[in-house]
């Protein structure tokens, strides 16, 4: 396999690396998210594996130069499997002092800082609460600092296109992108094409941006770079299975998965939602897929969104509703109706940090209790979770399968990290996708709406519009053998048990719990769910490389649990459960299996670092000695 770097004209020695972590940081207005996304594109096209982590402020446009206005985009790419966006930065791009202030802590000692000197004005420095200019004092000694007047360099690059000063400056990010692409030996074709398309109507703007991009690249190329530091890298292609790839965010994968699931069921999809961070992107992506058999309804609130989806399910569509914690809380009563009337419904929860409004743009996993227990009365539902951006696709299909096969609401748990993070995806072949066509209910002698399939215990799904299937359903308790309202005590007991058995029975229709990494027995099992997959996987790998008997178990099916999970857990001396909450899955495992599972908890609105998980495992192992 050959190195992918366009070999530079003059012999500049580039450091060969397995993986690199870069973070682009600047003002909300500096276009860091775009820069990162384009860098991701080019990196994917280079055949590296990668993971990204966009991190932007809660304010729409916080005042320029402030620390809370800093927007950042991190990318981790390499020639080996990449499972996280990276603990430590190799390169930090700081477009202004605030960006440096906020992000410096994550830069590894010896790491590279690329800073735009022009932005380090007195005003900006004080806004970022620097007493003296870090580019001048020796506070950055532990790092390699590349000081460039990117502002002027950009102005020069675009001067011929007659843009206003303000507009010209907007290209700073493209100049920077050009430089970083060169530094990491990436191509820039895709970006040029993208710019031409994006600014098709403003050719000057397109030209200017491309010029800036090229200038940044040329700047490195022509080696105007400080010679005393390593500025170039090469990263081999990742050794990934052959096939057609694309990069996807968790949101995109989720949207396509929901559509694929509805196609597999042979039904239309009805998506009812109300905007909320970080769930809105799903609404946005699906709104652009209206022509794919999706009816989109932006409701007046979350309750109406859930109710409309339930109504649509009653009428024969696959009702899907999406929100984040506070919005999901509002849907609880309506979901109870879907449980009682046994209608399919997919409830997508893009979790965010709470309680209440909390930290809307920050990620957390603290809605598991709500999903499993958060309704009035005995109201069990299946709960499944996605572990990575690409996993969202499969989990979404599975959610539709469970909802339509078992006539039940299904909670699909994702989070703010997965919603925005991206990774390369080996696009599945349409023919390899699952099929689970829903059988049409037809009029029969003695038909009633609560006739059940003896295996799944799912009730029939008679569709309005069908002559002979006219029926009434509702939230009052109903006779098991007629569906009519019933206040009979014994019948209520029977129906409550039926509803419980139906959901419990799903355990027989899902794969046995596998071990993501390591043996089926050992000293420590590290059990994860959702987006903690990456850091846990890396940490376990590290420790296993060190010879420890540690295994990684990643649970997709949180309720009901896979049949073999208890037995599996009992095979380990200790069970650690890292969660981005105060300990929710751990509670469920302890009550279900009476195993002394222990929590490893981070509630900082940020993903675990590999090092944090590794440390927890290490101390657990030591205590075992």
């Amino acid at each position, binding site marked *: 396999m050959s190195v992918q770097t366009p070999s530079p004209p003059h012999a500049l020695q580039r450091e060969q690396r397995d993986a690199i972590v870069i973070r682009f940081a600047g003002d909300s207005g500096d276009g860091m998210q775009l820069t990162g996304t384009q860098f991701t594109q080019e990196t994917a096209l280079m055949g590296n594996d990668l993971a990204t982590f966009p991190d932007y402020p809660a304010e729409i446009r916080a005042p320029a130069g402030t620390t809370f206005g800093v927007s950042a985009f991190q990318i981790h790419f390499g020639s080996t499997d990449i499972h996280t966006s990276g603990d430590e930065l190799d390169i930090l791009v700081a477009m202004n002092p605030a960006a440096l202030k906020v992000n410096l802590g994550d830069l590894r000692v010896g790491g590279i800082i690329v800073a735009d000197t022009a932005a380090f004005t007195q005003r900006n420095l004080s806004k970022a609460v620097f007493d003296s200019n870090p580019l001048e004092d020796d506070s950055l000694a532990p790092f390699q600092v590349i000081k460039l007047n990117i502002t002027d360099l950009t102005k020069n690059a675009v001067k011929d296109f007659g843009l206003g000063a303000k507009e010209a400056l907007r290209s700073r990010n493209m100049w920077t992108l050009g430089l970083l692409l060169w530094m990491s030996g990436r191509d820039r074709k895709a970006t040029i094409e993208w710019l031409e398309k994006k600014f098709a109507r403003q050719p000057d703007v397109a030209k200017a941006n491309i010029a800036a991009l090229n200038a940044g690249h040329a700047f490195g190329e022509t080696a105007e770079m400080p010679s005393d530091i390593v500025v170039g890298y090469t990263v081999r292609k990742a050794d990934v299975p052959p096939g057609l790839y694309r990069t996807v965010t968790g949101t995109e994968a989720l949207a396509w998965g929901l559509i694929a699931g509805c196609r597999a069921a042979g039904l239309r999809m009805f998506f009812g939602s109300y905007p909320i961070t970080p769930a809105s992107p799903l609404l946005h992506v699906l709104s652009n897929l209206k*022509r794919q058999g999706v009816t989109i*309804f932006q409701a007046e609130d979350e309750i109406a969104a859930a109710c409309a989806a339930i*109504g649509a399910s009653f009428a024969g569509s696959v009702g899907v509703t999406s929100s984040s914690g506070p919005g999901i809380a509002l849907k609880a009563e309506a979901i109870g109706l879907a449980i009682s009337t046994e209608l399919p419904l997919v409830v997508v929860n893009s979790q965010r940090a709470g309680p209440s409004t909390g930290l809307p743009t920050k990620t957390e996993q603290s809605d598991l209790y709500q999903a499993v227990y958060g309704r009035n009365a005995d109201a069990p539902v299946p709960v499944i979770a996605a572990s990575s951006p690409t996993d969202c696709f499969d989990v979404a299909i599975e959610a539709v399968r469970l909802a339509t096969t078992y006539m039940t609401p299904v909670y699909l748990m994702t989070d703010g990290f997965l919603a925005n993070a991206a990774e390369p995806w080996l696009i599945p072949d349409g023919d390899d996708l699952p099929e689970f066509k829903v059988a049409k209910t037809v009029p029969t002698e003695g038909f009633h709406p609560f006739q059940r399939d003896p295996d799944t215990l799912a009730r029939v799904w008679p569709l309005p519009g069908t002559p*002979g299937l006219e029926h*009434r*359903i509702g939230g009052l308790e109903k006779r098991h053998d007629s569906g009519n309202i019933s206040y009979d005590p014994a019948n209520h007991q029977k129906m409550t048990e039926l509803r419980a058995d139906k959901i419990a029975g799903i355990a027989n229709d899902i794969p046995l719990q596998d071990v993501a990494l390591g043996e089926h027995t050992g000293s420590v099992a590290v059990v994860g769910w959702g987006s903690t997959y990456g850091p846990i996987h890396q940490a376990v790998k590290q420790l296993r490389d060190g010879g420890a008997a540690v295994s990684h178990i990643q649970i997709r099916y949180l309720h009901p649990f896979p049949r073999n999970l208890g037995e599996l857990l009992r095979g380990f001396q200790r069970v650690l459960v890292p969660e981005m909450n105060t300990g929710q899955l751990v509670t469920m495992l302890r009550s279900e299996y009476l195993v002394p599972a222990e929590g490893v908890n981070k509630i900082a609105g940020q993903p675990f670092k590999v090092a944090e998980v590794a440390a927890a495992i290490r101390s657990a192992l030591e205590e075992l000695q």
Partner: protein
Amino acid sequence: MTVTVPPEQTPAKTEPLKPKDYASDQEVRWCPGCGDYAILKATQKTLADLQAPREKTVFISGIGCAARLPYYMSTYGFHTIHGRAPAIATGVKLANPELDVWVIMGDGDGLSIGGNHTLHALRRNVDLQLILFNNEIYGLTKGQFSPTSRPGTRSPSSPEGSISEPLSPLSFALGANARFVARAVDTQQSDLIDVLKRARQHRGASFVEVFQNCVVFNDGVFDEFTDKKVSVDMQLPARHGEPLLFGKEKNRGLKIADGCFGLEVATVGENGVALDDIVVHDETNRSLAMMLATLAPPQFPMVVGVLFCSPSDTFDRQVHAIEPVASELEDIHSLLRRGRTWTVV
């Protein structure tokens, strides 16, 4: 799934359906004498008169005494949760525009907990018939005052009488930009049936307030204008294009009060009032409808019938206008391959 096919166009049954054919096998469980019986009867008669196909007719309700109605119909029905019927009905209609969807709501159901959903169903102009059974009380929960209760209503939760002005359901609906607004009395069957038919014919959200007598917790609140003895004098049946007259001799009517924007009751033939002075009802005039909606006894008659009807494009039709039929869907295989991809060999 594209434009609405009016249910009528489905193959007509050989045997015409009778009102009782729209009744389910379930025992009706309202208090003896409850106004709901009359509304149920009128509803079944309406559907029979229109020969509405049962399989394409859906009744959605929230929770309350009124909300029990779907159980008594032989059509499709969904007894949902308190206040959410308009939202659920919106989902039903969007999922299958060929269905004829009726929403049955109590005054608490539709205007208290469900006010926001009623508001937005009306604003969006979803093709639904929203029928509000207004008994000015919470019946099912044993008689607490509701948002339409008159001030001073004594109830278990207002032993000294309720406080605050009631909501006028029709003013609310008009303020929400409703395109069809009408009123009827539970026991006045033929008028009620006429109004229900108009509501169903109307494409878009139609809002109907039915004065419904709760014999147990609010008996006789509407007697002032529904009592047989006074009804002709205290009700004004609005008919499009006809002067707004009422009373035994049909000689009293509404004229514009001079000076200000308002209406006053005048008697034709008395102190110089001619028939031409009486306002002619124009059901397409929202301002007039707003004024008529606020009139109330004792000074004014209660205006019943269709106060406002001015159709516009429906939400459900527009939503589906931009959606292709199933056959035209891009297959998932190519869908996933849209945009930038690369091949690893």
